[in-house]
């Protein structure tokens, strides 16, 4: 019977995992009383669903509908003047949700906060471009890579993939080698679908050598005419060397190389 492969996550998997192995967790620390992070959590108040410190940075879980308000509070009241990064993680297979994160930086305190929220598949998120212009490109990339729509973004358009691309490459359902659309993209676009049979599928193996191809591969020691059909076997042809000596360096008396 063919082995079952899950279709909702086609990314690389370990070929063997011990049945009794339980992954440990990176320690999450409580927010210390009197610290800068506690002031941040207090400023956000009831909007915080969960907060802890992971590897020196405050992580704040919020409701996705409040992302704009929370980040505005962080910027205006807590001094987080820069949005370093914004993107998403695909949890569609497990929970049917995307996890979005906003990585913010406070220059005065040298502290970082990660705001995390979750949205269901097909839901849109509010843009934070009015707060941080850096989100302009970041949200476009998120839309391009995951297909997450961003409300009120000034120019929500694919950024890295071509405009007429189908599918969102960082989804777990998208295979590493690309899907059907990706493999025929150039052929379909330049020549048309009817040329698929003539041109053939794209060769993604740069080391591929076709045995009977006499057009693109030289056959040292077994030269055949260009384009000859050799699938039925080939005639062995010895290499012929020229017997004419153009310049005989051994004949003269002049020492060419001083080291001799």
């Amino acid at each position, binding site marked *: 019977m063919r082995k079952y492969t899950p279709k909702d996550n086609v990314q690389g998997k370990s070929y063997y995992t011990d049945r009794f192995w339980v*992954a440990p967790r990176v320690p999450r620390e409580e927010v210390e009383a009197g610290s800068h992070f506690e002031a941040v959590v207090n400023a956000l108040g009831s909007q915080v669903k969960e907060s802890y410190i992971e590897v020196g940075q405050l992580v704040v879980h919020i409701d996705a509908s409040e992302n704009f308000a929370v980040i505005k509070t962080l910027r205006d009241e807590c001094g987080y003047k820069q949005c370093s990064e914004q993107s998403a993680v695909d949890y569609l297979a497990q929970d049917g949700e995307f996890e979005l994160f906003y990585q913010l930086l406070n220059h005065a305190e040298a502290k970082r906060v990660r705001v995390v929220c979750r949205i269901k598949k097909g839901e849109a998120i509010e843009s934070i471009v009015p707060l941080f212009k850096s989100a302009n490109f970041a949200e476009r990339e998120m839309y391009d890579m995951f297909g997450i729509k961003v409300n009120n973004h000034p120019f929500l358009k694919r950024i890295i993939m071509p405009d007429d691309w189908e599918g969102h490459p960082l989804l777990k359902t998208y295979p590493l080698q690309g899907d059907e659309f990706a493999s025929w993209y150039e052929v379909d676009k330049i020549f048309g679908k009817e040329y698929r049979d003539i041109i053939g599928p794209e060769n993604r193996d740069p080391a591929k050598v076709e045995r009977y191809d006499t057009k693109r591969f030289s056959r040292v020691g077994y030269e055949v005419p260009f384009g000859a059909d050799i699938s039925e076997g080939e005639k062995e042809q010895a290499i012929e060397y020229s017997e004419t000596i153009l310049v005989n360096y051994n004949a003269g008396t002049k020492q060419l190389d001083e080291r001799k």
Partner: protein
Amino acid sequence: MSQQPNKLTPFFENLNFERDDNTMVINFGPQHPSAHGQLRLVLELDGEQVVKAYPDIGYLHRGIEKMAENMTYNEFLPTTDRLDYIASTANNYAYALAVEKLLGIEAPRRAQVIRTMLLELNRVISHLFFLATHALDVGAMSVFLYAFREREYAMDLMEDYCGARLTHSSVRIGGVPLDLPAGWLENLAAFCDKVDYEVEHTYEALLTENRIWKMRLENVGVISAEEALSWGCTGPMLRGSGVKYDIRKEEPYELYSELDFDIPVAETCDSYGRYRLYMEEMKQSTRILRQLIPMYKKTEPRLMAHAPQYISAPKEEIMTQNYALMQHFVLVTQGMRPPKGEVYVPTESPKGELGFYIKSEGEPYAYRLKCRAPSFFHTGLLQEILVGTYIADVVTIIGTTNIVFGEVDR
């Protein structure tokens, strides 16, 4: 009759003259020599003035973040070379540090010294490259030749250490693979002297008071501090706007907390200020390198962290002890399994804040890896600062942002 695009006759969309509002749309790149790789910049011009700029990226997209989800942690490390290929060690290091933070391990002191040395050497390489290409874009050809000469010496040092000149992979998760070769420190000291001399007597002598250079750079590409923060500028782009923030100083990693160096800031917010800043940073890098040379001699000869669960034992142990061999076999065939959790680790690469966000689900493959590349955000900034400038300054402004498309498109 206007040409209709179809499958067989190509449609030359590059030039679109004389539109209704009498502006001209031109494509700057993706094959323009000053486009720093694969930047396609669609400019709408009114005469010679830019009315609208639209940076179009993605011509070098290789799906590195996707590859990270399909490779084990150690497998992925050489791929990070291809992000910012001008300063590969900075990428290797940023990635290795992120994974180390996830694992909760620390590299031994000798590895730290070597890593810091390589990072600073890489900063010099990258800044020399910036200077060379920026000067070439603006029209100062000879600076390009001089700067590339010194960059060759720096790359020779890298080659002596790791065997590669461009894609180094010189850092491993948990340490470094090799000790410094004999005589390397002497060569490094000589190189520091050389760079200091050349910066002062060649580059600065050629450019700093050069009338043409000043005319082309002063008051060109002015970015206010608020704009720089809002657009996510980091590194020299942020410090060039008067914000004194260097991750090496403010959130120190590796040995930077023990080293004595200054953070130069430019208050003028223009391209000329940024050029002066790069020059000063090169001097600070050689200052750091000089301090590291005596530190190296005081360290124990251990290169990789001891964490048998995650990192293979030294080769001698693998060859002599059965258990070390078994662990090595598992780590090579299955890959290390970091604990569940997420981490974002920022580092100061030569271009700015290079951070890796890694989400681990306890598998040998990262569940999600996001590379926060400084050039990506600096490219986004172009759509604002180019508006209102003249077409001759576009090249200067692209040069001063120092974008590298390996990390913009990833």
